[in-house]
Structures are given as structure tokens and as C-alpha cells.
């Protein structure tokens, strides 16, 4: 055994309670790990898995229409109603259509803006633009939706602008819903694409140019494959946020309803929580499907 050069032997640590626990834990790595993980796992379990399970279980119950209380007999009636009812099919298709159009519009608008921010603007302007993109998020969702309501009304600014050219405002309806939602979610689509473009080295663009690549082919063959995961990441935001929305369509959607409205009326007006839960499973299934499809692109690493 080696003797220390100087200072004498290291004194034995005092035998405190904390030390005994620490010794115990160091000898039981599995227990240590489970204690370490229990808090985040508890949170994950409570927020995601239990909530989803609760939703699924509620969907299997029914409501006594006379007293309004939930009857806990297991039945697939609600699920069958939602899958076979023509109302739910129509509304699901409408919601899906709106979500897809909003996503496409957002990506098309976000790409040039993000490219300008990441590759063209000076550092100073870059900062200004990032703040400008984030700024609308400081205002309330409702304020922005109601602002669009007055912009699109028949004596609103859109009508005033296009009237000299013989046009008129689209009015309240699905086009207005798409416009408003595309506006609301735009920052969430620009930011991931901007971040993705920032990671594309300028040298690659120059190399492509040096090798004779035109602007179009550089963008298509070099930039697009590199930022594709970022585009998918942005689209997940606009797509999933639109699927769940029911307020905007209420404000500017005219007489149209989306899946969220059906959930809302079944929770509120109809007092039918089980049916609402069954309807709420539709967007969840769609989102899971979408996430599973995009998982391979690596887009989830960009979220």
C-alpha cells in the first residue's frame, strides 16, 4: 500500500446520514437510476400517457341523456358513430383540407423570407428581421383573429383595396379561415426553416456556383435537401395547430365548423364528454400518422 508523500493519511470521512445514503446509492446503480428518472417519467406519464389513456377510456363510456351523468358501461358506440357518421367524415375532410392548405401556404411564404434572413440580409438586419417575425407572437391570438375579421369584412380594407379592380373580399368562410390561420402560424414555420438555412454553409452555395450550377439547380439540388427536415419541422407546427383550432373558424369561418368545434359543442352544448373524446381521437390519430411518416426524414431532431 502506498503512503502519501506528505500530509499524513487522509482522514476517514465522518459517518453522517447523507454519507450513508450516498454509499448505499453508489452500491445500487439501478436504484440510483430509477430515482433519477422517476420525476421526468412521472411528468411524462401524467401529462401524455395518462391524458391520452383518459381520453381513450372516456370515449368508451356513454352519457345518460336525462340526468347528464356519465354511465360507465363499456361500449364502442361513440367510436363507431365517429367513424361512420357522415357529419364526422365531412368535417374531418374539411379540417384536413384546411390544415394542408394552411401548411402549404405557410411553407411557400416562409421559404423566401427565411432565405433572405439567413443568406442575404446583413447581421444587423438579420436581428431586426428575427424580431419582426417574432413580434406578432406578442399580441394575443384573439386580437389577431378579430383584426382579420374586420380586415375581411365587406367594408374592410381588403374590399377597399380590390374594389377598383372589380374584386371583392372573400368574406367569412374557409378562404378567410385559411388566410387567418396561415398568418397566425407563420412565425412557427419561418423560424425552423431559418434555423435550417443558417446551418447550410455558404461555401456549399459557392462550390455549386463554381461547378456551373445555376441558381435554380443550386436551390433544388443543394439547399432543398439540406433544409427539408426543417421544412417538415415547420409544417408539423402549422399542420397540428390547425387541426386543433376552433376559435379562428368561429370568428372568420362563417357558418363552417371544424373538428375542434364539434369537440367544443359536445363538451359544452351537448354535455356529451364521451362523444367529444371520441372526436378528439381523430386529430390525434392523424397527427400520430403524420409524425410516423416524417420520423424517417429526421425532421423531429429539428423541433
Amino acid at each position, binding site marked *: 500500500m502506498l503512503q502519501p508523500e506528505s500530509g499524513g493519511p487522509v482522514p476517514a470521512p465522518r459517518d453522517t446520514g447523507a454519507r450513508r445514503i450516498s454509499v448505499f446509492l453508489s452500491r445500487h446503480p439501478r436504484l440510483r437510476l430509477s430515482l433519477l428518472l422517476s420525476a421526468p417519467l412521472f411528468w411524462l406519464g401524467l401529462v401524455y*400517457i395518462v391524458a391520452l389513456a383518459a381520453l381513450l*377510456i372516456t370515449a368508451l363510456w356513454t352519457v345518460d341523456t336525462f340526468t*347528464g351523468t356519465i354511465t360507465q358501461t363499456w361500449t364502442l358506440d361513440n367510436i363507431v358513430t365517429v367513424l361512420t357518421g357522415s357529419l364526422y367524415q365531412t368535417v374531418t375532410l374539411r379540417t384536413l383540407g384546411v390544415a394542408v392548405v394552411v401548411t402549404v401556404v405557410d411553407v411557400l411564404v416562409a421559404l423566401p423570407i427565411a432565405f433572405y434572413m439567413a443568406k442575404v440580409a446583413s447581421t444587423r438586419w438579420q436581428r431586426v428581421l428575427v424580431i419582426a417575425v417574432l413580434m406578432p407572437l406578442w399580441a394575443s391570438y384573439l386580437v389577431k383573429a378579430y383584426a382579420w375579421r374586420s380586415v375581411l369584412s365587406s367594408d*374592410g380594407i381588403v374590399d377597399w383595396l380590390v374594389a377598383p379592380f372589380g374584386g371583392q373580399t372573400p368574406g367569412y368562410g374557409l378562404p378567410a379561415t385559411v388566410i387567418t390561420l396561415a398568418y397566425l402560424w407563420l412565425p412557427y414555420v419561418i423560424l425552423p426553416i431559418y434555423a435550417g438555412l443558417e446551418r447550410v454553409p455558404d461555401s456549399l452555395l459557392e462550390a455549386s456556383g463554381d461547378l456551373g450550377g445555376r441558381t435554380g439547380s443550386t436551390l433544388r439540388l443543394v439547399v432543398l435537401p439540406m433544409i427539408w427536415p426543417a421544412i417538415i419541422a415547420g409544417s408539423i407546427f402549422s399542420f397540428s395547430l390547425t387541426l386543433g383550432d376552433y376559435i379562428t373558424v368561429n370568428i372568420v369561418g362563417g357558418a363552417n365548423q371544424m373538428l375542434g368545434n364539434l369537440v367544443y359543442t359536445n363538451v359544452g352544448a351537448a354535455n356529451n364528454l364521451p362523444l367529444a373524446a371520441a372526436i378528439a381521437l381523430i386529430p390525434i390519430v392523424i397527427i400520430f400518422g403524420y409524425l410516423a411518416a416524417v420520423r424517417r426524414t429526421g425532421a423531429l431532431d429539428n423541433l
Partner: protein
Amino acid sequence: MNRHAPHRNSKLTALTGLAIASIALLTACGTTTSGATKPTASAPTALGANEGAVSILAWPGYVEDGSNDPTVDWVSAFQDETGCKVTSKTYGTSDEAFNLMKTGDYDVVAASGDASLRLVAAGDVAPVNTDLIPNYAGIYDFLKLQAWNSVDGISYGIPHGYGANLLMYNKNVVTPAPTSWDVVFDKSSAYKGKVTAYDSPIYIADAAMYLMKHQPDLGIKNPYALDEKQLAAAVDLLKQQRPNIGEYWSDYLKSVQSFETGDTVVGTTWQVIRNSLAAGTPAEVTVPSEGVTGWSDTWMIASKAAHPNCAYAWLNYIASPKANAQATEYFGEAPSNQKACEFMTDPNQCATYHAGDADYASKIWYWTTPIAKCIDGRTDVTCTDYAAWTTAWQEIKG
């Protein structure tokens, strides 16, 4: 074999275990909510001492203690008078009120007719002994013991205020001035995309009321008592109306705005919406020849009220001429107390809302919850209940 497979499997097993555990936990928690038996509450015959507190659930603007507007306060006087400290909560729709009453946290609720019968049926509210409420004598007789505030001749509450769902139209667009609801039904295509309607299953009653006059062979006697065939006819009418609807409204400010901008030119409205329109808006309201639907609100007492004596004190206070005048004027509806008009700050208030006009009031079909037992007295058929109306309403909107 995949090297990661065992690791993956154990993760999956853990997740499955967690899911099963949570399901078991939820099922265990859940069972306590069911099996509630209907309480057979009865009205008290005498009152005791006030408990010092009362908890009230009401429409916005019904229980004002000055915290929203210092000049609007009728709760402080009640607290000084009775020693009952008021805590209140507001709700946005009748359905919300119905759900909140299930919590048992409230002693008193101001319920519209589309909630009151449901509350009675669910056993959430108790009969009210009107002999214990001196101010009940001052209430208009045409509001007492109606289908929406009593069951089998037993009173379940005190009338508060009432109003009608009128027809509003844009004078410049809808000419000549309409005298029938046909401008929103059979002739609505003339105003395609600019027609509005109230966004609630209870609006089906408006269509039924229209059919009462225009398709008498359907035999509708009361728009809230519809059998399967009659409901189907009303739904068909509303489905024909649907393509011409610009938007449905439930938020009255949304309706105010769309009439001001001209996005809506004709449809159902409330007097308070007409009064809120910006000056110069070319809109007018009318009571069409078919009549109108409307609401009459009722103060009810919870069957499990923790403070029943203070609850009775509140019902008596809010039915008094002064408090009734303050509350109904602030909200924009006709008062229920005959002497309330003397206490209104606006001398025209009662005329505007046709308070006490029994003839006007008789044209109103007050919101009543549709239930399976036909409220028009038919016993040979079962009527469609509110759940059926809600499903129908969702299908109409599509």
C-alpha cells in the same frame, strides 16, 4: 436478430405497464362519479337564521358588486341588509351553467329556460316555497308557474327578466320591411351569404314556430315539443336555410359588428344588440307575424345548497323592484317586477323592452328544454329531447 430488440422490448413493456396502471387508476377514480341517485328535495316551510354567506352562479351582469363598474352595484346593499356575503361566478352558455351546477358549489343559479328543466330533471335544484318570498307577489302573473320555471304546478324559482329573439334587418337591403320570418327561411336565398341565425340547438324551435304557421298539417302545438317527424321537418327547413347563412352567432358582439359592416343583413337578434349598434346603422327590429322565441330567466336554489336561508334572502332581494330594475336594466331585458319600471335610470327602458306588455309577452315562446315527455300535453308520442336537438343541430351546420 436486431441487437437493439431486447432493449426496445423492455421499454415497450414498461410503457404498456404504465398505461395499464394508469387505466386501472382512472377506472378506480371514475367509478365514484356514477350511480348518483336522484334526490327527492322538498321546499322548506320556514326559514332559519341567515348563514352569513351565499354562492351564486349567474349570467354576466346579473350579480354586480361594483368590481366591474363602481356605479353598478346591487350586491353591497344586499350584504348590508342580510349579512350574507356574496361570492359569484358567471357563465357563458346555459350548458356551462348546467355543468357547473353539477359541482354542488353553488347555492343559487340564474337559469334560462333551456337549462331550468334539465336542472330539475337532474335533481340539481329544489322546489322553491314562494310563500317565503314576500316580493314574489310583485312579479307579473304571466311569468309565474310557467313550463320553464315549474313542474306539475310546483314552483322551482323566481322569474328574473325576459326578452325576445327578434328579427333584425338592414333597411337599405331588405325591402319592403319584412313582416314574416320567411325572409330567413323560404325567401332567404335573396340574401344568400348575409343571413344570420343563433348558434344553438335551441334555434330549432324558431324553425318549428315558423312551421306551426306555414305547415299546419305537421300539427306542431309547441315549438319545444317536437316528435320525430316534426323535428325532421324543422331540420329540413334549417338545412335549406344553411347555404344562405353567412354566419351563426352566439357572441352578441360578433352580431353587432356584422350588422354594422353589412356582412349580415337579416336574422335573429336581441333588443340589446339593436341598442348596441353604432348610430346610423340602418337596422331595425320587428316581431314577425309568426311570433318570436325568447328567454325568461329564473332564480333557482340548489337542492344541496349549503346556505339555504341566505339563498332565499337573495331570491327575495333580487325580486324587489329596485334590485330587479338595476339588474335587468344593466343586462338589457324586461324586468319581472311590476314596480321595477319606477326605478329605471332610463325612463324609456320599460317601453323599449315592452315590460309588462302581456300581449307582447304572449307572442313569445320562451326557451324551454325539450324533454322526452311532450310538454304540449301529448301522451301518445315521445318527443325529441335536447340531446337529439344537439345532434340535429350539428348535422344542420355540417
